[in-house]
């Protein structure tokens, strides 16, 4: 291998390594969501987003707890409450039951101690989804962090 090729390979290797290191804790992760529709407002002032059967979002790692407004809208199977399983970085945190489909539930959930990254990933798994033109899980309101 010529010196020029060796140099080029070295530069590519270093750049790839730097990119991989950067992507271990990307500063923009806080803006990433998955399985959530765009923000809507109804009634005026009440902002919410629909989830699909699963959804993910990020919260800053220094938050100690979060209040997560949830509303089922559509009832669960056989009249049972809709249950939202909440996990943090793949660890179970809580199961939130939504027995009254028309009411907002605002559980405050303690977050585990800060890890090594800037953000923690919150995953929601809903035990039923309504499927038509879209897939609708539950409504999530604006999250408040403490």
């Amino acid at each position: 291998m010529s010196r020029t090729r060796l140099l080029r390979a070295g530069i590519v290797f270093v750049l790839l390594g730097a990119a991989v290191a950067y992507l271990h804790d990307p500063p923009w992760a806080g803006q990433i969501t998955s399985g959530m529709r765009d923000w809507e407002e109804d009634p005026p002032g009440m902002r919410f987003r629909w989830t699909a059967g699963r959804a993910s979002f990020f919260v800053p790692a220094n938050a100690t707890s979060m209040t997560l407004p949830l509303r089922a809208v559509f009832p669960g199977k056989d009249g049972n409450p809709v249950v939202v399983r909440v996990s943090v970085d793949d660890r179970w945190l809580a199961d939130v039951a939504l027995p009254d489909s028309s009411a907002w539930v605002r559980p405050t959930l303690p977050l585990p101690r800060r890890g090594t990254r800037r953000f923690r990933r919150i995953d929601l798994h809903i035990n039923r989804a309504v499927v038509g033109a879209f897939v609708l899980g539950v409504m999530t309101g604006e999250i408040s962090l403490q």
Partner: protein
Amino acid sequence: MVSRIEHHAVAIIATIAVAAYCWVYTRPDADPPIRSDGYNYYLYAASWVVYHDATLEAVANDWNGGAYADFAGMIRWPGTGRWINRIPIGVSVLMLPFVVSAHLLSGWSNLPKDGFSFYYQHAAGLAGLLYFIAGLWLVRNTLRRHFQPSVSLVTLVVLTFGTDLFHYGVNEPTFSHAFSFALVAALLALCDRFWSPAGWSTRHSIALGLVAGLIVLVRHTNVVLLLLLPMWRLDAWRLLPARRRDLGVAAIAAATIVAPQLVYYHWATGSWFVNAYAVHGVHFTLMSPHLAGALVSTQRGLFFWSPVLLCAVPGIVFARGWVLDIRAGALIVLGINAWIIASWSEWQYGAAFGHRAFIDCFPILAMFLAEGFAWLMDHPRLVPTTAIAITLATALSVAQMIQYWHHIWPTRDITWDQYRALFLTFR
């Protein structure tokens, strides 16, 4: 100078494509890359890589409470109750390296390993973009073997920006067309080599078989494009028996890559061969094709929305040398392909820019385009007028593509009155 630009043409187009991709997907109202038909094309890859599931049940259970949204058109096959995707597995197979990378990267970055989050979306999108560029590179290599650099350069630019190819490589890259474009470009290059006097090996036979198999896996009806091999030259079919070993190796490679699709069909429906569209009420009307609609209408006409492709006409009529050798066979293949496209009961192919179904055969059309440009360059009196016309037609195509990106055009059934009313309006 022209030669140097031509040498870097694909890299320059790739740079423009990446910039356009970034612009498209960073707009506030941008849809994700995996959408519409792209969802169905990608679905297998997510199911295999993320959920280790070939039945398509796990994605439905995890995301959708055990079902699929209406737009996906997924059905449980009557009799077996198993999910059938109307779209075959080919695009997912070609996406696999990208999706595996996205999956590993999602774990590394602590992003959701759910098959549809940030990295997966752009892995699928960039896969289509990369196949589009790979297709251009293959077309360029074939052009350079038979044409001057100036002809190759003009052909590449016109094919990219004067048609809907750029749109389907950049804005809707998870649809099948960028993938088929690359595969048919590879088929063309392999056909050219297959019928060349020397330089064919078992490695080439395997490559031919894999490409042929993938063409069928990506879009079953594109099986007609494989006729290009036996029809490459008028006397080609007579020479085929002497190449039976090469063809046998290619057939084994093709059968190997197609086999998983047949296994899936058999598992899901009990039949090895299935028209998964039949249950959706769409079908072929082979005795009454919408040829005018598919080729010249305001709704979807190939030549109405990409008028620069008419430059292929002198290339067909006045073909010389290598293009003359392949003309008859290529025209028969293009004709059968057009007939099949126009015979589909949904001949507009849903919401689309231009007629997307023809993109798959653009590598073949590119040879006639290049011959047309070569013929024009041999007639200097025609060059100024045609150069202006080609530039305007290409610019019009780009303008209309941007209009489509801004949702100016109705998604289907565009009338002449609508076209006139919306001509070059951007709000």
